[in-house]
């Protein structure tokens, strides 16, 4: 029999056992055996690809099995195995801020506001859909939807780039969110509810305006809040030096 020592953080998942007696011939077989016996251990020992989590180390008679034959290391009777966690962490995620051209973002916002105002004034609901489609294309391509207008303005020297260290993902999320609201508006027009349609359109106008004129991106703030509650699709943390959603300072 081989004795496997369980570290304190994993004991609650192994019926409180400090040590478990196992009869198997390799480290891998022993790990599988204890997971079969105590299925609650599995998510804490193995990752989604069924490999040992990075912080899980297995020591055979005080030697790390990674320096031996890894999980294929053979185990003899009376050997002592230990699961030893390594502890790691740190104040920020793997975030390294990218370079984001905020002039392109602001051009995008100005175009969205301008075209939606035109749509409202002349009662052109299809323009609402058009803006939504351009925003969605931008979201898919990870670029501001109206980047082509920005490029023209750059060529004509009407506008200069404003490159700032920032996370691009929250802006992409905000763009996609606005696009879906506009699709909802167009659906409301189709269902003969123009009031709902225009309210949704104005929501996008106001949020884009708050971003353009006040420097606060509501969609980005929503992204960072979703990150804070640990949703896996929102990996980027808000930069620590500013309130989530506020425009970063110029470099």
């Amino acid at each position: 029999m081989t004795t496997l020592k369980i570290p304190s953080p994993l004991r609650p998942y192994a019926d409180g056992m400090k040590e478990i007696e196992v009869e198997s011939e390799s480290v891998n077989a022993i790990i599988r055996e204890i997971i079969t016996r105590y299925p609650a251990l599995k998510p804490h020992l193995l990752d989604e690809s069924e490999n040992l989590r990075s912080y899980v180390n297995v020591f055979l008679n005080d030697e790390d099995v990674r320096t031996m034959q890894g999980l294929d290391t053979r185990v003899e009777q009376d050997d002592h195995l230990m699961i030893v966690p390594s502890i790691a962490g740190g104040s920020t995620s793997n975030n390294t801020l990218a370079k984001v051209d905020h002039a392109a973002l602001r051009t995008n916002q100005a175009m969205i506001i301008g075209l939606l105002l035109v749509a409202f004034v002349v009662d052109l609901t299809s323009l609402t859909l058009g803006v939504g489609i351009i925003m969605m294309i931008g979201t898919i391509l990870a670029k501001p939807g109206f980047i082509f207008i920005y490029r023209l303005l750059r060529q004509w020297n009407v506008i200069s780039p404003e490159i700032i260290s920032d996370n691009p993902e929250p802006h992409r999320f905000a763009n996609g969110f606005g696009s879906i609201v506009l699709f909802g508006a167009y659906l409301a027009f189709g269902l003969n509810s123009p009031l709902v349609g225009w309210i949704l359109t104005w929501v996008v106008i106001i949020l884009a305006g708050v971003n353009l004129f006040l420097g606060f991106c509501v969609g980005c703030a929503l992204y960072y809040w979703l990150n804070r509650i640990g949703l896996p699709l929102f990996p980027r943390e808000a930069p620590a030096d500013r309130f989530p959603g506020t425009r970063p300072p110029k470099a």
Partner: protein
Amino acid sequence: MIHIPVDVFAQIQKNGEEHYPEEGAGLLLGKVHGEKRIVEQVLQLQNRFQPGARHNRYMIEPQDMLLAEEKADELGLEIIGVFHSHPDHPAQPSEYDRERALPWYSYIITKVTDQSAIESRSWRLTDERTFTEEQLQIE
């Protein structure tokens, strides 16, 4: 709830201040009575993360954990958690912290700014692998 004697708590905060602008780290040794956790000692350990990245990273290697387990056994205590500092960052777990966190342990994080400990908060990983704050009682 996690209870910490005031002098032990002072050691945790001082550790963060001394390591500033790098992260300091160590282990909490104590006893667990149901949901009540009592820290009796801390074990200050070296941050083994690669030099140059210790301003936002810390690591306690398995060999240090083995020695810590022996020390805890000698004292009749258990390793009940980990403490580390966040230089110029909030006293809350980052996504990087969450990805590498172990269940059951208490994680005490201290925000340090300009070499002064500003705030310490304690966190526990849930079974859904999200962090929830744990009440920290200094006595």
